[in-house]
């Protein structure tokens, strides 16, 4: 993984949610997944901004679903992580774990 290719905190959260949701990853489910698992409220606008950035980098791809009445006749945009995206998430995890390891202050929840 090249220098500067690590994901930011929010991008990583969004990418992990996309990977976890598999074929059902679109704006609403991604933001709910992040809210449920992190306890942090996220805006749909910031989720889309992160997804668009990652799509430009080739970490995710998207396709449009069918329009539904519940959405005012608008289509869902489904996202899927690419192999580069999965590799990038792994690389970021590895870097974070390496930094984490051997820090007594962070062991067992002590401050």
């Amino acid at each position, binding site marked *: 993984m090249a220098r500067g290719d690590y994901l930011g905190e929010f991008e990583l959260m969004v990418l992990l949610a996309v990977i976890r949701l598999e074929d059902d990853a679109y704006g609403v489910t991604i933001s709910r997944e992040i809210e449920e698992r992190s306890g942090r409220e996220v805006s749909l*606008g910031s989720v889309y901004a992160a997804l668009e950035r990652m799509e430009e980098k080739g970490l995710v791809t998207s396709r449009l679903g069918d329009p539904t009445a519940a959405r005012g006749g608008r289509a869902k945009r489904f996202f899927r992580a690419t192999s580069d995206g999965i590799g990038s998430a792994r690389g970021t995890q590895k870097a974070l774990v390496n930094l984490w390891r051997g820090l007594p202050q962070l062991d067992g929840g002590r401050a």
Partner: protein
Amino acid sequence: MNSRKPPRLANLLLERLRYFERNEALAGDLQEEFASGRSGRWYWRQALQVIGRGVRRNVASDWPGLIFVILVGYLPQLCCVLLLRRYLALSPRWLGNAATALVYVSLVVPLVRRRMKLPPLRVNAFLLLAYWIILLPISIAFDSAPLTITAEALILAAVLAVLGVKLAECPKPEPKWVAPPLFCAQCDEIVLQVELTDGRVIFLRPENLTGSILAAGDDGLVWAMFGRGASIETLRRALWLGCVGREQPVKVTDLSALVDEAADKEHVQQAFIVRWE
């Protein structure tokens, strides 16, 4: 189906500022979440965050142009103000207000015209002249501070309104580099056929670009694609450019030129516009 209607004003703002038009999926997501029980306050918060993000992107994408226009526009205005103060002994307050308003005007022009088709210096000279031809005689003939202040305030309000709307408008989406499906009739997806030096023909796909390049085991191919340290995004654009209007396999020796072209964003945008618009 839940028939709750989202806050009308928030919806109107997002529609008029073209966020719904340019991101249909976001519009649908907001509607779906609201229908599932989110509050009107939540909807407003989402709408304002979307607009705030748009303002930030607009400012970020235009800031060099804005600074250039302010600098180029402000200097001649400042010179005129100093000369007029010296030779006509006009009130510094009035001149100061005029200069400030003109700086605001010079901010609006590039935003309204987007790509600054007129040279900024000429635009500013024109605005300076127009502004002073209208306001200076009013001020001198009537010698009325309230009149001058009202006229200035109206101009300033109009300028700020235009500026606000232009800055809050949804940024234009950049062309996507990955072509829509059905690009290659046989494979139903975007695929570039490459003829290697030994005569073999391989397929490069955007999703597994690195893997398929390495799997081909051809030094010429590896050098053409990775030789100049191009980013993966540039390589994907090269793949897309290679596919535009091509039915025969591209020769591996031509790939370097494609990577060079893909590094030039303007070139790729132009190719995209020609092919898809």
